[in-house]
């Protein structure tokens, strides 16, 4: 037994010393918040606090994942999430490889599983995958022994986005239990909405989803959320609103309102926020369509935490990479 093992063994015996989470992370992957317990979500948030401290150091880098290789496998373009994961990996001293669809074998018809198996054969340790198909991350994780982190799969989940949203809320409000959060926008096609619903409800928040009726997916109320198609209703009692990006570039010919029509009926404006709680927190996963889902004045306003979300995203992703890289296998003493 080494000295360090000893000191930590002792430490864990006095749980609650510094109000820290003593949950043990056992999962090889992060696929979605549906699959995590409340305690596991809180562990990620707690560890992210420590990583946020790392980001404030004069040298914003720790050697924790030195020698590990992390592959960002992106089937969909995404600047923000990819850079955030890349920075998180680099802050942990991992080697990072980025693969984007254009110009790689994945555009030449190689299947997702084949690509994953090749990356595993190349001795990657963690694959961070973004894919336009729901379930892609889970499928990959089943086929591989190495870790898979879901960076967004179809309309299914975007767990790190929801984690950073919840982390930001926790920083501002101290507690998630009992708060009212409204998610506004294209709920039907939003992985951000689904992950937020899972995470927030598990932590005891009360969640309302707000969208035009045709963008409310079937049966959503069974996910323990309130549903409304009135933006004023969604804003009224909210401690925070999370405004989703309206993806007018979506290639499907779905029943979509026009941009102007949408802004008129669902856009978050200063006028509408006057009827809200004074300190309402305004979030957006980005990139923002100014003047579509949100007025520019609101995005830049005093209630907006949009840029803090971006910073917190790195800490969350560091925590996630750290935890999946050190997941404990088997039973614990």
């Amino acid at each position, binding site marked *: 037994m080494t000295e360090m093992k000893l000191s930590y063994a002792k430490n864990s015996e006095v749980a609650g010393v510094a109000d820290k989470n003593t949950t043990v992370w056992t999962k090889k992957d992060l696929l979605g918040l*549906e699959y995590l317990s409340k305690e596991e979500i809180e562990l990620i948030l707690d560890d992210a606090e420590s990583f946020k401290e790392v980001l404030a150091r004069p040298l914003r880098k720790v050697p924790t994942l030195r020698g590990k290789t992390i592959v960002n496998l992106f089937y969909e373009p995404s600047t923000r999430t990819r850079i955030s994961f890349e920075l998180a990996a680099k802050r942990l001293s991992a080697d990072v490889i980025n693969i984007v669809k254009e110009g790689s074998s994945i555009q030449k018809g190689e*299947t*997702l*599983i084949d690509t994953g198996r090749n990356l595993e054969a190349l001795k990657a340790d963690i694959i961070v995958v973004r*894919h336009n*198909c*729901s*379930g*892609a991350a*889970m*499928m990959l994780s*089943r086929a591989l022994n190495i870790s898979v982190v879901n960076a967004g*799969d*179809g*309309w*299914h*989940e975007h767990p790190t986005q929801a984690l950073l949203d919840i982390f930001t809320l926790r920083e501002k409000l101290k507690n998630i239990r009992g708060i009212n959060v409204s998610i506004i926008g294209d709920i039907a096609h939003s*992985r951000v909405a*689904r992950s937020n619903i899972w995470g927030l409800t598990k932590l005891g928040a009360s969640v309302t989803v707000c969208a035009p009726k045709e963008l409310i*997916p*079937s*049966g*959503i109320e*069974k*996910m323990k959320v309130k549903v409304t198609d009135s933006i004023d209703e969604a804003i009224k009692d909210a401690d925070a609103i999370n405004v989703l990006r309206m993806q007018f570039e979506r290639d*499907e010919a779905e029943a979509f309102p026009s941009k102007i029509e949408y802004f008129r009926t669902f856009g978050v404006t200063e006028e509408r926020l006057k009827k809200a709680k004074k300190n309402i927190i305004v979030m957006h996963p980005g990139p923002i369509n100014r003047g579509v889902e949100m007025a520019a004045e609101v995005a830049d306003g005093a209630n907006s935490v949009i840029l803090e979300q971006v910073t917190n995203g790195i800490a969350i992703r560091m925590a996630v990479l750290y935890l999946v890289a050190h997941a404990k296998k088997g039973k614990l003493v």
Partner: protein
Amino acid sequence: MSILIKNGRVINPATNRDGIFDILIEDGRISEISKNMGKKTRSVIDANDKIVAPGVIDMHVHLREPGREDMETVASGTRAAVSGGITSICAMPNTYPALDSVNAIKRLKGIIKKDASNNVFVIGAITKGRKGLDLVDMAAMRKEGALAFSDDGNSLGDEALMSESLKMAGGNNAFLISHCEDRNISKNGVMNEGITATKLGLRGIPKQAEYEFVERDIRLAEKTRTKIHIAHVSCKESIDIIKKAKTKGVQVTAETAPHYFSLTEEACVTYDTRTKMNPPLRALEDVEAIKEALRDGTIDVIASDHAPHGKHDKEVEFDFAAFGIIGLETLLPLAIAALVEKKMISWMKLVELVSLNPAKILGLSNKGNLSPGKDADIIIIDPLANWVYTKDSIKSKSKNTPFINWKFKGKVETVISGGREIFTGSAGSVLNL
């Protein structure tokens, strides 16, 4: 050549017979059924404690030959069928090329004659190339042996064409098997619409896509006074419509597949592509309705909708995976497990659903019935045998089924087709013909 099956519990819904009898088979036909038969034959099968029933007739099988012999062939498909207790199958016409001409049927019949382990009947396409545009020559194809017509996999979107094909099939002493799916509603859906699809972020297929076409096709059959058979019924609303039509006297029959009463949409939660089928697995209330419809006779037939797909078609993203699962080897076991073992229906009713009713619908008057003079297509089931359906045991060329490693009670022990013993479970293989 003669075989004597002794002391089995003979179940024959055609004559409402359920009791211990001996069956004598001579020259491919049943020659006598009686108690304690004294006759001596060279071949005697002891069926003590076993169930003896007419062989299963599976109305809905995709054999993939010609065209996709890598997924299934007449040889492999019929071998799989026999090991599942199925003595007759209907081959669906969505092959490459489609079974849309006399020549195509002739070619397939040639393959069947050469390779098939059991009876294979042919279903012809309704339209050329199954494109929903030009009707095939039903009269000539009927003469060549097509029992019914179907563009299975597609629905005829054009109502007038549907009416016309119903009439033409009826005029040729045949009928249509309708795949009911309004593509304008199902669009790019991949699973049942509802909370599970919402959670998974998968595109839903609303039940309307099915039942609105069930309603339409029944209405057209009523108007044209023709027979129609609704394929793979999966939801409660379709059942309600069929039930009403039957009460009104419309000549409608219907089938469902074992997965629709064995699994709910919940089976999709791990994005296992082996749970992706069309129509999709539905909600629990639909599963309950299907079982009730089988019990009360609204649904006449259990058919497998055996749909082999290669690994490359299933080991992909759920959105991209092919629809369908194999089902020949699990049709009977799943029906026993979900319906008989759960006391939903009797063995008698089960045999009616898998053998007598399909024979009646298809006009196979010598099949599905254990009576003197009828075809000796017989299965012997050990109702108490416990067994596990393993991947290695699968006889089909494709392995796309969610039922691997399911435990079953009740196993097909012996299969006799045309008076010949073609399968014994103890040997575990289909005997050489």
